[in-house]
């Protein structure tokens, strides 16, 4: 993947993530983690090679099919990206409303998700009235509204204290156990080391390690 300014962000990356997997994506800043994620959600197209997500070749995807792809992928960020003037309920409902869901569907789906992430009691709070962990739970609930096949978490614990980070990881594991593939980009060594899951390590745009049940750093 080469950017228009000539910078090669990713090269010779060959990875397959099976359905239902839980994968950590690690590497220093600028290693290509963000580009990797942007390719998966078709924010960008690869200059060479192919990207297949949820059975779709993203290069062949027509413009009108992109929203459909995005509904198969949930995404959460380090900075939560909640709408500050909407309540927890409204933030989650928004993702349904803008995709044409009926009022009945919204009233059915939002409570399910708020229960899943444990925020049903905070439904009518604004993001500013929530802790960081609660905000991230809201973002996760929003990411799951369309029951996606894949949940991408880009540094989801980057703004959180260690205890809260663990709560978020527990939630992601729970979601993974319900059948959703989870890809989590992180710098959090402690979590990666404790979890012993598959680790993809990027460095300077190269995939330097793809190892099952691995630690944050190379151990051999």
């Amino acid at each position, binding site marked *: 993947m080469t950017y228009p300014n000539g910078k090669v962000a990713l090269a010779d990356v060959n990875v397959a993530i099976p359905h239902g997997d839980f994968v950590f994506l690690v590497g220093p800043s600028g290693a290509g983690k963000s580009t990797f994620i942007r390719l998966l959600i078709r924010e960008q197209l690869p200059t060479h090679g192919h990207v297949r997500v949820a059975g779709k070749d993203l290069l062949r995807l027509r413009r009108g099919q*992109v929203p459909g792809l995005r509904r198969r992928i949930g995404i959460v960020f380090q900075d939560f990206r909640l709408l500050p003037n909407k309540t927890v309920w409204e933030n989650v409902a*928004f993702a349904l409303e803008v995709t044409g869901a009926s009022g009945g569907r919204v009233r059915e789906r939002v409570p399910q998700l708020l229960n899943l992430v444990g925020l049903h009691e905070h439904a009518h709070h604004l993001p500013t009235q929530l802790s960081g962990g609660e905000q991230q739970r809201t973002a996760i609930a929003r990411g799951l509204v369309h029951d996606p096949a894949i949940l991408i978490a880009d540094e989801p614990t980057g703004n959180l204290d260690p205890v809260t980070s663990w709560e978020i990881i527990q939630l992601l594991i729970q979601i993974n156990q319900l059948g959703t593939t989870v890809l989590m980009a992180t710098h959090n060594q402690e979590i990666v080391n404790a979890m012993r899951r598959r680790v993809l390590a990027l460095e300077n745009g190269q995939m330097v390690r793809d190892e099952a049940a691995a630690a944050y750093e190379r151990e051999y």
Partner: protein
Amino acid sequence: MAFVRFIGFSIVRAWQGFWRNAMMSLAATATVILMLVLLAALAIVIAGLNSGLEFIEGKVAVTARLADNLPATDRRALIDEVEAYPDVASVEYVSPEEAMGRLRDSYREQGQELDLGGADSTIKLFASLEIAPTDPNASSAIANRLSDSPHVVRILTKQAEYDALLGIINLIRTIGLVAVGLVALTVLFMIINTIRIAVYSRANEIEIMRLVGASDSFIRWPFILEGVLCGLIGAVVTIALVATIWEPIQPVMVSVFQMPTAVSTRFLTTISLLLFAVGLGVGALGSWISVRSYLVASH
């Protein structure tokens, strides 16, 4: 059902967007009103002058005053000669008595009685031929030919008035259309800017909409409708204004500009439709341009 939800969603979001940056939206709406008021004024003036022109066109005739006491045979010969001109549609002889009758009638129309100073008055009008040309512009040529005839004392045409009025109408129409065009450009610019600011102020929402898989139409249409709303509100306000001032204007159109009463009754509807279409059109065009230039989809 899904389409109805989409329309409902877009209208609600457009309405919220309109009031979110109320200053900008109202300023854009004000320029729409300015443009439409100008357009309405222009349309009213042009319609009035056109009616006047049509009225004169119907009357553009060559009036040839005949020599007093012209024998009937000479008169007959002159009429035959004039009727033979290719650019003459009809010729009518008006006797002095008929001329007097018309004068009396026109006084009565104004609610007055013609006063000739008593029943034994010797005042007498002249006999004339009223010649209708096939084309209003042919009246000068007819007049020229007639001026050679010994039986004709004096020739009157309305060519000069007709040309003057036509010139004024064309001038007003040109200046008016240029002015409306310039204001329309300003309006377009205002709407483009308003919608651009709306798009920028909602950048976060747009990004989230993209990420959760909202289709392009869900992202775009609220903004397009927001511009349409500026045009629509502007049109409704202007139509209300014109409807209010139309009542005193209508009699003027009928009496001064000779606009047929039937046309003047329909005119308010016609102009309302025009204002509505132009307001809506400019609003939609401006927001469409804005959405196309500032909502470039980053796939």
